[in-house]
Protein backbone atom coordinates (compact mmCIF):
# COMPACT_ATOMS: atom_id res chain seq x y z
CA UNK A 1 0.00 0.00 0.00
CA UNK A 2 1.33 3.43 -0.82
CA UNK A 3 -0.07 5.56 1.95
CA UNK A 4 1.19 8.77 0.33
CA UNK A 5 -0.81 8.04 -2.83
CA UNK A 6 -3.88 7.37 -0.70
CA UNK A 7 -3.33 10.57 1.23
CA UNK A 8 -2.91 12.52 -1.99
CA UNK A 9 -6.50 11.63 -2.90
CA UNK A 10 -7.86 13.27 0.23
CA UNK A 11 -9.65 16.54 -0.58
CA UNK A 12 -8.45 16.22 -4.17
CA UNK A 13 -11.86 17.60 -5.21
CA UNK A 14 -10.58 21.07 -4.38
CA UNK A 15 -10.03 22.70 -7.77
CA UNK A 16 -6.88 24.48 -8.90
CA UNK A 17 -8.49 27.13 -11.04
CA UNK A 18 -9.91 29.42 -8.36
CA UNK A 19 -8.65 32.95 -8.97
CA UNK A 20 -8.80 34.47 -5.44
CA UNK A 21 -9.91 37.97 -6.47
CA UNK A 22 -9.57 39.49 -3.00
CA UNK A 23 -6.01 38.21 -2.70
CA UNK A 24 -5.28 39.65 -6.12
CA UNK A 25 -6.75 43.01 -5.12
CA UNK A 26 -4.61 43.08 -1.98
CA UNK A 27 -1.48 42.39 -4.00
CA UNK A 28 -2.29 45.02 -6.59
CA UNK A 29 -2.93 47.56 -3.85
CA UNK A 30 0.40 46.72 -2.30
CA UNK A 31 2.13 47.05 -5.65
CA UNK A 32 0.52 50.44 -6.09
CA UNK A 33 1.99 51.43 -2.74
CA UNK A 34 -1.21 51.65 -0.76
CA UNK A 35 -0.90 50.57 2.87
CA UNK A 36 -2.30 47.18 3.83
CA UNK A 37 -4.18 46.32 6.95
CA UNK A 38 -1.83 44.06 8.88
CA UNK A 39 -0.15 45.38 11.95
CA UNK A 40 3.02 46.76 10.62
CA UNK A 41 5.23 49.70 10.54
CA UNK A 42 3.83 53.12 10.93
CA UNK A 43 2.43 54.09 7.60
CA UNK A 44 2.62 57.72 6.65
CA UNK A 45 -0.03 58.68 4.21
CA UNK A 46 0.79 60.51 1.06
CA UNK A 47 -2.00 63.01 1.70
CA UNK A 48 -0.94 65.55 4.26
CA UNK A 49 -3.44 64.18 6.70
CA UNK A 50 -0.60 61.78 7.26
CA UNK A 51 -0.07 60.88 10.83
CA UNK A 52 -3.17 62.70 11.95
CA UNK A 53 -5.91 60.17 11.57
CA UNK A 54 -5.96 57.19 13.83
CA UNK A 55 -5.14 54.58 11.23
CA UNK A 56 -1.91 56.23 10.44
CA UNK A 57 -0.76 56.36 14.03
CA UNK A 58 -2.18 53.05 15.20
CA UNK A 59 1.12 51.26 14.98
CA UNK A 60 3.48 52.82 17.42
CA UNK A 61 6.47 54.69 16.25
CA UNK A 62 9.98 53.94 17.14
CA UNK A 63 13.47 55.13 16.83
CA UNK A 64 17.14 56.03 17.42
CA UNK A 65 20.09 55.19 19.52
CA UNK A 66 21.39 55.80 23.01
CA UNK A 67 19.87 57.41 26.03
CA UNK A 68 19.91 61.15 26.12
CA UNK A 69 21.53 62.91 29.01
CA UNK A 70 20.00 66.08 30.32
CA UNK A 71 21.40 69.57 30.43
CA UNK A 72 23.12 69.44 27.11
CA UNK A 73 24.56 72.60 25.73
CA UNK A 74 22.48 74.61 23.35
CA UNK A 75 25.12 74.81 20.72
CA UNK A 76 28.25 72.78 20.10
CA UNK A 77 28.06 69.51 22.02
CA UNK A 78 30.43 68.93 24.93
CA UNK A 79 33.91 68.04 23.74
CA UNK A 80 33.82 64.81 25.74
CA UNK A 81 31.29 63.31 23.36
CA UNK A 82 33.53 63.70 20.35
CA UNK A 83 36.77 61.94 19.64
CA UNK A 84 39.73 64.35 19.70
CA UNK A 85 40.15 64.40 15.94
CA UNK A 86 36.55 65.43 15.28
CA UNK A 87 36.00 69.15 14.83
CA UNK A 88 32.51 70.31 15.53
CA UNK A 89 31.00 73.67 14.75
CA UNK A 90 28.40 75.75 16.57
CA UNK A 91 24.95 74.63 15.51
CA UNK A 92 23.33 77.68 13.98
CA UNK A 93 21.53 76.20 10.98
CA UNK A 94 20.33 72.90 9.52
CA UNK A 95 23.60 72.77 7.53
CA UNK A 96 25.81 73.07 10.60
CA UNK A 97 23.72 70.46 12.39
CA UNK A 98 24.21 68.09 9.47
CA UNK A 99 27.93 68.92 9.39
CA UNK A 100 28.39 67.88 13.04
CA UNK A 101 26.32 64.73 12.58
CA UNK A 102 28.49 63.73 9.62
CA UNK A 103 31.69 64.51 11.53
CA UNK A 104 30.62 62.21 14.36
CA UNK A 105 29.24 59.40 12.17
CA UNK A 106 31.02 56.09 12.14
CA UNK A 107 30.45 52.83 10.29
CA UNK A 108 27.50 50.87 11.71
CA UNK A 109 27.13 47.09 11.69
CA UNK A 110 24.07 45.73 9.87
CA UNK A 111 21.64 44.11 12.32
CA UNK A 112 20.60 40.53 11.63
CA UNK A 113 16.98 39.98 10.50
CA UNK A 114 16.23 38.02 13.67
CA UNK A 115 17.63 40.59 16.06
CA UNK A 116 15.25 43.01 17.73
CA UNK A 117 14.88 46.73 17.91
CA UNK A 118 14.14 47.71 21.48
CA UNK A 119 12.45 51.07 21.94
CA UNK A 120 11.39 52.91 25.04
CA UNK A 121 9.60 56.13 24.39
CA UNK A 122 7.54 58.77 26.10
CA UNK A 123 4.40 59.96 24.36
CA UNK A 124 1.41 62.08 25.18
CA UNK A 125 -2.01 60.48 25.36
CA UNK A 126 -5.16 61.40 23.50
CA UNK A 127 -8.79 61.07 24.44
CA UNK A 128 -9.93 61.59 20.86
CA UNK A 129 -12.00 58.93 19.21
CA UNK A 130 -9.89 56.73 16.97
CA UNK A 131 -11.79 57.95 13.95
CA UNK A 132 -10.95 61.63 14.31
CA UNK A 133 -7.86 63.77 14.40
CA UNK A 134 -5.76 62.40 17.18
CA UNK A 135 -5.26 65.65 19.05
CA UNK A 136 -3.01 64.99 22.00
CA UNK A 137 -3.84 66.10 25.51
CA UNK A 138 -1.21 68.59 26.66
CA UNK A 139 0.49 67.76 29.94
CA UNK A 140 -0.10 64.03 29.68
CA UNK A 141 2.57 61.45 29.22
CA UNK A 142 3.09 57.72 29.17
CA UNK A 143 6.14 55.54 28.70
CA UNK A 144 5.92 52.67 26.24
CA UNK A 145 8.31 49.85 25.56
CA UNK A 146 8.36 47.52 22.63
CA UNK A 147 10.47 45.12 20.65
CA UNK A 148 10.17 44.91 16.86
CA UNK A 149 12.05 42.18 15.11
CA UNK A 150 14.43 43.61 12.53
CA UNK A 151 12.59 41.80 9.70
CA UNK A 152 9.27 43.18 11.06
CA UNK A 153 7.72 39.71 11.13
CA UNK A 154 7.24 39.75 14.90
CA UNK A 155 6.49 42.33 17.53
CA UNK A 156 6.64 41.95 21.28
CA UNK A 157 5.61 43.96 24.31
CA UNK A 158 4.83 43.35 27.96
CA UNK A 159 1.20 42.91 28.91
CA UNK A 160 0.41 42.39 32.58
CA UNK A 161 4.03 41.50 33.20
CA UNK A 162 4.11 38.91 30.46
CA UNK A 163 5.97 39.22 27.18
CA UNK A 164 3.39 38.87 24.42
CA UNK A 165 4.29 38.25 20.78
CA UNK A 166 2.28 39.35 17.77
CA UNK A 167 2.94 38.31 14.21
CA UNK A 168 3.39 41.12 11.80
CA UNK A 169 4.62 41.59 8.33
CA UNK A 170 6.89 44.07 6.71
CA UNK A 171 4.97 46.75 4.92
CA UNK A 172 5.93 49.60 2.77
CA UNK A 173 7.01 52.85 4.34
CA UNK A 174 5.59 55.82 2.50
CA UNK A 175 7.96 57.04 -0.16
CA UNK A 176 10.39 54.13 0.10
CA UNK A 177 10.65 50.97 -1.99
CA UNK A 178 8.93 47.81 -0.78
CA UNK A 179 12.21 45.95 -0.43
CA UNK A 180 13.43 48.38 2.23
CA UNK A 181 15.64 46.72 4.82
CA UNK A 182 18.99 47.38 6.48
CA UNK A 183 20.85 46.07 3.46
CA UNK A 184 19.07 48.62 1.32
CA UNK A 185 19.72 51.37 3.86
CA UNK A 186 23.44 50.55 3.98
CA UNK A 187 23.55 50.88 0.20
CA UNK A 188 21.95 54.35 0.08
CA UNK A 189 24.30 57.22 -0.76
CA UNK A 190 25.76 59.01 2.26
CA UNK A 191 26.46 62.10 0.20
CA UNK A 192 23.53 64.41 1.07
CA UNK A 193 23.03 65.70 -2.48
CA UNK A 194 22.95 62.20 -3.92
CA UNK A 195 20.74 61.00 -1.09
CA UNK A 196 18.28 63.83 -1.69
CA UNK A 197 18.21 62.91 -5.37
CA UNK A 198 17.58 59.27 -4.45
CA UNK A 199 14.73 60.21 -2.11
CA UNK A 200 13.15 62.38 -4.80
CA UNK A 201 13.59 59.59 -7.32
CA UNK A 202 11.91 57.10 -4.96
CA UNK A 203 9.05 59.45 -4.30
CA UNK A 204 8.51 60.06 -7.97
CA UNK A 205 8.66 56.43 -9.05
CA UNK A 206 7.58 54.28 -6.13
CA UNK A 207 4.57 56.00 -4.87
CA UNK A 208 2.99 59.35 -5.16
CA UNK A 209 3.85 61.98 -7.70
CA UNK A 210 5.67 64.94 -6.18
CA UNK A 211 3.43 67.82 -5.22
CA UNK A 212 4.84 71.26 -5.96
CA UNK A 213 8.49 71.39 -4.98
CA UNK A 214 8.13 67.99 -3.27
CA UNK A 215 9.68 69.26 -0.05
CA UNK A 216 6.71 68.22 2.09
CA UNK A 217 7.04 64.65 0.84
CA UNK A 218 10.81 64.60 1.27
CA UNK A 219 10.39 65.68 4.90
CA UNK A 220 7.66 63.10 5.46
CA UNK A 221 9.76 60.35 3.93
CA UNK A 222 12.77 61.18 6.11
CA UNK A 223 10.65 61.28 9.26
CA UNK A 224 8.91 58.02 8.30
CA UNK A 225 12.27 56.34 7.89
CA UNK A 226 13.56 57.65 11.21
CA UNK A 227 10.53 56.60 13.20
CA UNK A 228 10.44 53.14 11.64
CA UNK A 229 14.19 52.58 11.67
CA UNK A 230 15.30 53.51 15.12
CA UNK A 231 18.88 52.53 14.91
CA UNK A 232 19.81 53.95 11.52
CA UNK A 233 23.35 53.59 10.19
CA UNK A 234 24.92 56.78 11.56
CA UNK A 235 26.39 57.95 8.25
CA UNK A 236 22.99 57.62 6.61
CA UNK A 237 21.40 59.39 9.56
CA UNK A 238 23.79 62.32 9.09
CA UNK A 239 23.19 62.36 5.34
CA UNK A 240 19.41 62.49 5.95
CA UNK A 241 19.89 65.67 7.99
CA UNK A 242 22.10 66.94 5.19
CA UNK A 243 19.42 66.18 2.61
CA UNK A 244 16.82 68.05 4.69
CA UNK A 245 19.25 70.96 5.11
CA UNK A 246 19.33 71.20 1.32
CA UNK A 247 15.62 71.83 1.11
CA UNK A 248 14.55 75.44 1.38
CA UNK A 249 11.78 74.98 3.91
CA UNK A 250 13.55 73.18 6.77
CA UNK A 251 14.60 75.25 9.80
CA UNK A 252 16.68 74.68 12.92
CA UNK A 253 15.13 74.90 16.37
CA UNK A 254 16.21 74.44 19.99
CA UNK A 255 13.44 72.99 22.15
CA UNK A 256 12.73 71.06 25.32
CA UNK A 257 11.18 67.71 24.55
CA UNK A 258 8.42 65.83 26.35
CA UNK A 259 10.97 64.19 28.65
CA UNK A 260 12.37 67.60 29.62
CA UNK A 261 15.57 67.31 27.61
CA UNK A 262 17.09 70.12 25.58
CA UNK A 263 17.18 68.91 22.00
CA UNK A 264 17.82 70.24 18.53
CA UNK A 265 15.06 70.17 15.97
CA UNK A 266 14.79 70.24 12.22
CA UNK A 267 11.30 71.47 11.51
CA UNK A 268 9.14 72.37 8.62
CA UNK A 269 5.89 74.30 8.54
CA UNK A 270 3.49 73.14 5.91
CA UNK A 271 1.61 76.13 4.58
CA UNK A 272 -1.20 74.03 3.15
CA UNK A 273 -2.08 72.18 6.34
CA UNK A 274 -0.87 74.73 8.88
CA UNK A 275 1.08 71.99 10.65
CA UNK A 276 4.61 72.35 11.95
CA UNK A 277 6.42 69.04 12.23
CA UNK A 278 9.77 68.70 13.97
CA UNK A 279 12.32 65.92 13.92
CA UNK A 280 14.00 66.06 17.34
CA UNK A 281 17.71 65.36 17.55
CA UNK A 282 20.04 64.50 20.41
CA UNK A 283 22.54 67.42 20.60
CA UNK A 284 25.42 65.15 21.64
CA UNK A 285 25.05 62.10 19.45
CA UNK A 286 22.94 63.61 16.67
CA UNK A 287 20.66 60.59 16.67
CA UNK A 288 16.90 60.82 16.24
CA UNK A 289 15.32 61.69 19.58
CA UNK A 290 11.64 61.92 18.70
CA UNK A 291 9.16 64.13 16.95
CA UNK A 292 6.63 66.83 17.62
CA UNK A 293 3.81 68.08 15.47
CA UNK A 294 1.78 71.20 16.23
CA UNK A 295 -0.96 73.10 14.42
CA UNK A 296 0.21 76.68 13.83
CA UNK A 297 -2.77 77.96 11.85
CA UNK A 298 -6.44 77.01 11.81
CA UNK A 299 -7.18 74.77 8.87
CA UNK A 300 -9.85 72.64 7.37
CA UNK A 301 -8.81 69.89 5.01
CA UNK A 302 -10.58 67.23 3.08
CA UNK A 303 -8.72 64.08 2.24
CA UNK A 304 -9.54 60.49 1.42
CA UNK A 305 -10.51 59.93 5.02
CA UNK A 306 -12.94 62.79 5.41
CA UNK A 307 -12.76 66.38 6.55
CA UNK A 308 -10.45 67.41 9.29
CA UNK A 309 -10.70 70.68 11.17
CA UNK A 310 -7.61 71.73 13.06
CA UNK A 311 -7.29 74.59 15.50
CA UNK A 312 -4.18 76.61 16.07
CA UNK A 313 -2.19 75.34 19.03
CA UNK A 314 -3.42 71.74 18.87
CA UNK A 315 -0.73 69.19 19.58
CA UNK A 316 -0.80 66.32 17.09
CA UNK A 317 2.20 64.28 18.13
CA UNK A 318 4.79 64.52 20.86
CA UNK A 319 7.19 61.64 21.21
CA UNK A 320 10.51 61.40 22.99
CA UNK A 321 12.70 58.39 22.35
CA UNK A 322 14.25 57.42 25.66
CA UNK A 323 16.18 54.39 24.44
CA UNK A 324 16.52 52.58 21.15
CA UNK A 325 18.94 49.77 20.58
CA UNK A 326 19.47 46.53 18.69
CA UNK A 327 19.23 43.56 21.06
CA UNK A 328 19.42 39.82 20.48
CA UNK A 329 16.16 38.80 22.14
CA UNK A 330 12.72 40.21 22.71
CA UNK A 331 12.42 41.37 26.31
CA UNK A 332 16.09 42.34 26.43
CA UNK A 333 16.83 45.94 27.37
Amino acid at each position, binding site marked *: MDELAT*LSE*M*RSEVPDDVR*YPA*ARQALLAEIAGRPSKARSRKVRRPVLLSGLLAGAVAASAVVAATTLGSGNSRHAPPAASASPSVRLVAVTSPMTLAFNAAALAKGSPTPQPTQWVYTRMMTTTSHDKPSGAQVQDPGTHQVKEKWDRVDFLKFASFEHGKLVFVNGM*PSQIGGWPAELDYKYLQALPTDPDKLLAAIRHNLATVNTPLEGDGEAQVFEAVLALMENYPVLPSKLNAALYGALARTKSVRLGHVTDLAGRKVLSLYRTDAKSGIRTAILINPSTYTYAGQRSVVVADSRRTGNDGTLTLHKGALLADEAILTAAIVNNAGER
Partner: protein
Amino acid sequence: MRQTSERPAVDDSDVIDRSLRDPSAFAELFERHVGEIGRYVTRRVGPGVAEDIVGETFLVAFRRRAAYDRSRTNARPWLYGIATNVIRRHRRDEVRALKALQRTGADPVLADAGSFADQVDGRVSASATSRALAPVLAGLDAGQRDVLLLTAWADLTLDEVAEVLGIPPGTARSRLNRARTKIRSALEKKENRHG
Protein backbone atom coordinates in the same frame (compact mmCIF):
# COMPACT_ATOMS: atom_id res chain seq x y z
CA MET B 1 -0.88 16.68 -8.95
CA ARG B 2 2.20 18.46 -10.19
CA GLN B 3 1.38 20.51 -13.19
CA THR B 4 3.59 19.44 -15.99
CA SER B 5 3.47 22.62 -17.92
CA GLU B 6 6.40 23.39 -20.14
CA ARG B 7 8.98 25.70 -18.81
CA PRO B 8 7.90 29.18 -19.84
CA ALA B 9 10.20 31.26 -21.95
CA VAL B 10 10.42 33.80 -19.16
CA ASP B 11 11.00 31.96 -15.91
CA ASP B 12 9.98 33.04 -12.42
CA SER B 13 13.36 34.44 -11.52
CA ASP B 14 13.17 36.73 -14.57
CA VAL B 15 9.74 37.90 -13.47
CA ILE B 16 10.97 38.62 -9.95
CA ASP B 17 14.03 40.35 -11.31
CA ARG B 18 11.86 42.56 -13.48
CA SER B 19 9.55 43.30 -10.54
CA LEU B 20 12.44 44.90 -8.66
CA ARG B 21 12.48 47.64 -11.27
CA ASP B 22 8.81 47.53 -12.13
CA PRO B 23 6.79 46.27 -9.14
CA SER B 24 3.70 45.70 -11.29
CA ALA B 25 5.52 42.83 -13.01
CA PHE B 26 4.97 40.83 -9.82
CA ALA B 27 1.30 40.37 -10.74
CA GLU B 28 2.52 37.88 -13.33
CA LEU B 29 3.93 35.65 -10.59
CA PHE B 30 0.53 35.74 -8.88
CA GLU B 31 -1.24 34.67 -12.06
CA ARG B 32 1.19 31.84 -12.61
CA HIS B 33 0.95 30.27 -9.18
CA VAL B 34 -2.23 31.37 -7.45
CA GLY B 35 -4.25 28.38 -8.67
CA GLU B 36 -1.86 25.82 -7.31
CA ILE B 37 -0.92 27.59 -4.08
CA GLY B 38 -4.59 28.39 -3.48
CA ARG B 39 -5.55 24.76 -3.93
CA TYR B 40 -2.97 23.63 -1.39
CA VAL B 41 -4.01 26.27 1.13
CA THR B 42 -7.69 25.41 0.64
CA ARG B 43 -7.05 21.72 1.14
CA ARG B 44 -5.38 22.46 4.42
CA VAL B 45 -7.65 25.07 5.99
CA GLY B 46 -10.77 25.29 3.85
CA PRO B 47 -11.97 28.00 1.48
CA GLY B 48 -13.18 30.24 4.32
CA VAL B 49 -9.73 31.43 5.34
CA ALA B 50 -7.91 30.44 2.16
CA GLU B 51 -8.47 33.76 0.46
CA ASP B 52 -6.80 35.63 3.34
CA ILE B 53 -3.92 33.20 3.53
CA VAL B 54 -3.34 33.28 -0.21
CA GLY B 55 -3.45 37.08 -0.09
CA GLU B 56 -0.94 37.26 2.70
CA THR B 57 1.32 34.70 1.07
CA PHE B 58 1.68 36.81 -2.05
CA LEU B 59 2.04 40.05 -0.08
CA VAL B 60 4.89 38.56 1.91
CA ALA B 61 6.42 37.21 -1.30
CA PHE B 62 6.18 40.63 -2.93
CA ARG B 63 7.84 42.34 0.01
CA ARG B 64 10.62 39.80 0.20
CA ARG B 65 11.22 39.52 -3.51
CA ALA B 66 14.58 41.29 -3.30
CA ALA B 67 15.84 38.38 -1.18
CA TYR B 68 14.71 35.75 -3.69
CA ASP B 69 17.50 33.47 -4.84
CA ARG B 70 17.45 34.20 -8.54
CA SER B 71 19.29 31.03 -9.42
CA ARG B 72 15.92 29.30 -8.78
CA THR B 73 13.99 29.43 -12.00
CA ASN B 74 10.76 28.18 -10.42
CA ALA B 75 9.31 30.14 -7.50
CA ARG B 76 6.88 27.38 -6.56
CA PRO B 77 8.82 25.94 -3.57
CA TRP B 78 9.51 29.44 -2.27
CA LEU B 79 5.80 30.29 -2.40
CA TYR B 80 4.89 27.03 -0.67
CA GLY B 81 7.37 27.89 2.07
CA ILE B 82 5.77 31.29 2.64
CA ALA B 83 2.26 29.79 2.53
CA THR B 84 3.30 27.20 5.10
CA ASN B 85 4.38 29.91 7.51
CA VAL B 86 1.11 31.76 7.09
CA ILE B 87 -0.93 28.56 7.46
CA ARG B 88 0.77 27.89 10.79
CA ARG B 89 -1.10 30.79 12.29
CA HIS B 90 -4.31 29.00 11.36
CA ARG B 91 -3.34 25.68 12.86
CA ARG B 92 -6.38 25.65 15.11
CA ASP B 93 -8.76 26.08 12.18
CA GLU B 94 -7.01 23.27 10.39
CA VAL B 95 -7.19 20.86 13.32
CA ARG B 96 -10.77 21.80 14.12
CA ALA B 97 -11.89 20.90 10.60
CA LEU B 98 -10.04 17.59 10.73
CA LYS B 99 -11.66 16.70 14.03
CA ALA B 100 -15.09 17.58 12.68
CA LEU B 101 -14.43 15.36 9.68
CA GLN B 102 -13.46 12.50 11.98
CA ARG B 103 -16.54 13.02 14.17
CA THR B 104 -19.21 13.56 11.54
CA GLY B 105 -17.86 12.04 8.33
CA ALA B 106 -18.58 15.33 6.56
CA ASP B 107 -15.58 17.39 5.58
CA PRO B 108 -15.99 21.07 6.44
CA VAL B 109 -13.24 21.93 3.97
CA LEU B 110 -15.43 20.61 1.14
CA ALA B 111 -18.74 21.65 2.70
CA ASP B 112 -17.70 25.30 3.06
CA ALA B 113 -16.85 25.32 -0.55
CA GLY B 114 -19.76 27.28 -1.91
CA SER B 115 -17.34 28.60 -4.47
CA PHE B 116 -16.59 25.20 -5.92
CA ALA B 117 -19.88 23.43 -5.19
CA ASP B 118 -20.29 22.70 -8.88
CA GLN B 119 -17.12 20.75 -9.06
CA VAL B 120 -17.99 18.61 -6.08
CA ASP B 121 -21.61 18.13 -7.02
CA GLY B 122 -22.77 19.10 -3.58
CA ARG B 123 -21.00 16.01 -2.32
CA VAL B 124 -19.72 16.92 1.09
CA SER B 125 -19.53 13.62 2.85
CA ALA B 126 -15.96 12.51 2.68
CA SER B 127 -14.77 9.04 1.82
CA ALA B 128 -14.23 6.56 4.62
CA THR B 129 -10.53 6.82 3.89
CA SER B 130 -10.50 10.58 4.42
CA ARG B 131 -12.40 10.08 7.63
CA ALA B 132 -9.82 7.57 8.83
CA LEU B 133 -6.93 9.88 7.88
CA ALA B 134 -8.36 12.94 9.61
CA PRO B 135 -7.47 12.05 13.22
CA VAL B 136 -3.95 11.09 12.20
CA LEU B 137 -3.39 14.43 10.48
CA ALA B 138 -4.94 16.26 13.42
CA GLY B 139 -2.68 14.40 15.83
CA LEU B 140 0.62 15.07 14.04
CA ASP B 141 2.75 17.84 15.37
CA ALA B 142 2.85 20.84 13.09
CA GLY B 143 6.34 20.09 11.77
CA GLN B 144 5.40 16.58 10.72
CA ARG B 145 2.15 17.71 9.16
CA ASP B 146 3.97 20.34 7.10
CA VAL B 147 6.48 17.83 5.77
CA LEU B 148 3.81 15.21 5.05
CA LEU B 149 1.40 17.50 3.24
CA LEU B 150 4.06 19.43 1.31
CA THR B 151 5.10 16.02 0.03
CA ALA B 152 1.69 14.46 -0.59
CA TRP B 153 -0.35 17.50 -1.59
CA ALA B 154 2.19 19.98 -2.94
CA ASP B 155 4.37 17.35 -4.62
CA LEU B 156 7.58 18.90 -3.37
CA THR B 157 10.63 16.69 -3.19
CA LEU B 158 12.12 16.01 0.23
CA ASP B 159 15.02 18.31 -0.55
CA GLU B 160 12.62 21.09 -1.51
CA VAL B 161 10.59 20.49 1.64
CA ALA B 162 13.73 20.68 3.78
CA GLU B 163 14.74 23.88 2.09
CA VAL B 164 11.42 25.69 2.32
CA LEU B 165 11.02 24.73 5.96
CA GLY B 166 14.61 25.61 6.73
CA ILE B 167 15.39 22.21 8.26
CA PRO B 168 18.13 19.67 7.46
CA PRO B 169 17.12 17.07 4.83
CA GLY B 170 17.66 14.32 7.40
CA THR B 171 15.12 15.93 9.71
CA ALA B 172 12.62 16.22 6.86
CA ARG B 173 13.12 12.55 6.03
CA SER B 174 12.66 11.34 9.59
CA ARG B 175 9.57 13.53 10.06
CA LEU B 176 8.11 12.17 6.86
CA ASN B 177 8.85 8.59 7.87
CA ARG B 178 7.25 8.98 11.26
CA ALA B 179 4.17 10.59 9.73
CA ARG B 180 3.93 7.89 7.04
CA THR B 181 4.07 5.17 9.66
CA LYS B 182 1.15 6.71 11.49
CA ILE B 183 -0.84 7.09 8.28
CA ARG B 184 -0.11 3.52 7.26
CA SER B 185 -1.19 2.05 10.56
CA ALA B 186 -4.44 4.05 10.52
CA LEU B 187 -5.18 2.82 7.01
CA GLU B 188 -4.39 -0.76 7.96
CA LYS B 189 -6.64 -0.55 10.97
CA LYS B 190 -9.43 0.66 8.75
CA GLU B 191 -8.88 -2.17 6.23
CA ASN B 192 -8.99 -4.72 9.00
CA ARG B 193 -12.19 -3.28 10.34
CA HIS B 194 -13.88 -3.38 6.98
CA GLY B 195 -12.09 -6.36 5.48
